[in-house]
């Protein structure tokens, strides 16, 4: 591993419970995320992993529990507010702007950094143009980093799945997030694509020091790249610790392999 230093707790989730009508998606879950670390959430299908991520990104408001992000309590959040606080995310089922080019998709990630108003933009010359060029440079660096230069002008809907996933990551990176949430970044990829994506995730963490929370099904990947792992099953936390620690946890083994009753 590199010389990055894992810092203080930046996200602290305390006793989170979330239910949809009578269905309990999450029950009394607590864990924390430290600065600069890669934190994985794993669990069988329906364990509540995506719900957990949606709670952090503000899509769902939990009925109970506290979210403390960078020392601030967030009870009633919405996605736009969390984005403004520096939380970026990617989606399990891609939610890219399919009709727009790769570059435009990534540029939308800069929206919160735009300072000129609509009248200045309508006039185009002057401040709006300077700002556009500045953001464009930033996005070009991301495009270089993710090695998608040849597809800059291609409508995203026409790219193969693996590349779309990369654009999704690029758009999140354009927000210069302090916390990056990745919802199954490697789902549906072949081995080679998975290796590429793992490398990008590690590089993002290493070069920009971005804190990452990720959901992943591929155990090999999770154990290789994450610092600490939370294990959920049926909406409850059954394990939390380093990959080695979690691997030898009996509850986790039971959840994954099944247990005789």
């Amino acid at each position: 591993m590199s010389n990055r230093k894992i810092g203080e707790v930046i996200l602290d989730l305390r006793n989170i419970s979330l239910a949809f009508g009578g269905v309990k998606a999450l029950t009394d879950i607590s864990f924390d995320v430290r600065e600069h670390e890669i934190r994985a959430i794993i669990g069988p299908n329906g364990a509540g992993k995506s719900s957990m991520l949606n709670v952090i990104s503000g899509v769902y408001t939990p009925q109970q529990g506290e979210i403390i992000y960078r020392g601030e309590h967030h009870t009633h959040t919405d996605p736009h507010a969390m984005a403004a606080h520096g939380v970026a995310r990617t989606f399990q089922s891609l939610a890219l702007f399919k009709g727009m080019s790769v570059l435009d998709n990534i540029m939308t990630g800069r929206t919160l950094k735009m300072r000129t108003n609509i009248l200045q933009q309508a006039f185009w010359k002057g401040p709006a143009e300077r700002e556009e060029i500045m953001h464009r440079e930033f996005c070009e660096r991301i495009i270089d980093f993710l090695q998608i230069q040849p597809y800059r002008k291609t409508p995203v809907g026409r790219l193969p799945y693996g590349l779309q996933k990369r654009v999704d990551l690029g758009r999140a990176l354009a927000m210069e997030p302090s916390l990056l949430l990745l919802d199954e970044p490697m789902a549906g990829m072949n081995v080679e694509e998975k290796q590429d994506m793992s490398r990008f995730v590690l590089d993002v963490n290493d070069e920009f020091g971005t804190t990452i929370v990720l959901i992943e099904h591929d155990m090999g990947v999770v154990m290789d790249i994450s610092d600490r792992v939370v294990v959920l099953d049926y909406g409850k936390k059954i394990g939390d610790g380093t990959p080695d620690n979690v691997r030898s946890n009996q509850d986790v083994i039971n959840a994954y392999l099944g247990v005789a009753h």
Partner: protein
Amino acid sequence: MGFFLEVVLGGLMAGVLYSLVALGFVLIFKASGVFNFAQGAMVLFAALAMARLAEWLPELLGFESLLLANLLAFVLAALIMVVVAQGIERLVLRPLVNQEGVTLLMATLGVTYFLDGFGQTIWGSDVYKIDLGLSKDPLLVLGDLFEGGILLNRDDIAAALIAVALVVVLAIFFQKTATGRALRAVADDHQAAQSIGIPLNRIWVIVWAVAGFTALVAGMVWGSKLGVQFSLAILALKALPVVIVGGFTSVPGAIIGGLLIGLGEKLAEVYLGPIIGGGLENWFAYGLALAVLLVRPQGLFGERIIDRV
């Protein structure tokens, strides 16, 4: 040949106006999923505001110039339309966010009647005219190519140019500016747009303002051709078959759909009318829309809806 070209050009020019109104529909539908039935009423309201202001302002401020009167009236009417459009968004549609499409449609239906009535209350209910100062003499072109050449109305040409200019300006705004990009992003995927911090509320406000402005341009051009009267609102409803033909979610579709319908109904009236009987122009658009719905329900340029079962 000359006559045929005349019919074609006449049809296309009428079509440009349908496109303008349809553009207002599509913008709002794409960005917020609201089918704004009130777009036609907004066109009438804008035309009334423009006509009356151009009449009142010179009296009020004591000047003679027609150009200045039109210019001032246009700017003022544009401001009024932005306020009206934002009022509809804030007071009617925002409280209904996340409701069923039918609920939103009914709400805009209510807005339609309110705007029709309220517009006539403040601006008056007679037939008014918008005089853009264009000469009504027809222009003869290509006289040496065909016998008799082609006769074109100057105000038709001006109308077409204004409409094309507006479409070009909107296209540049959507493609080149950061706000335009955010608008396209919202139109593409609400959830993703929110998660990267694009505020939906602000985008809706902008879209409604733009729709109000296109309503004004359509109202002004149409009003100068036909006079400003209640029937304008009904004529503007021709934009409905236009968006069905072009596709609800496509800006180019709105433009091409408008041209197709304008062209189709003129050709049908002139060449099929004598065979089938007159009045074809009134229902041709709806007939075409019905045919498109049967064959290609998403419209010519709309997104095909594919559902995973």
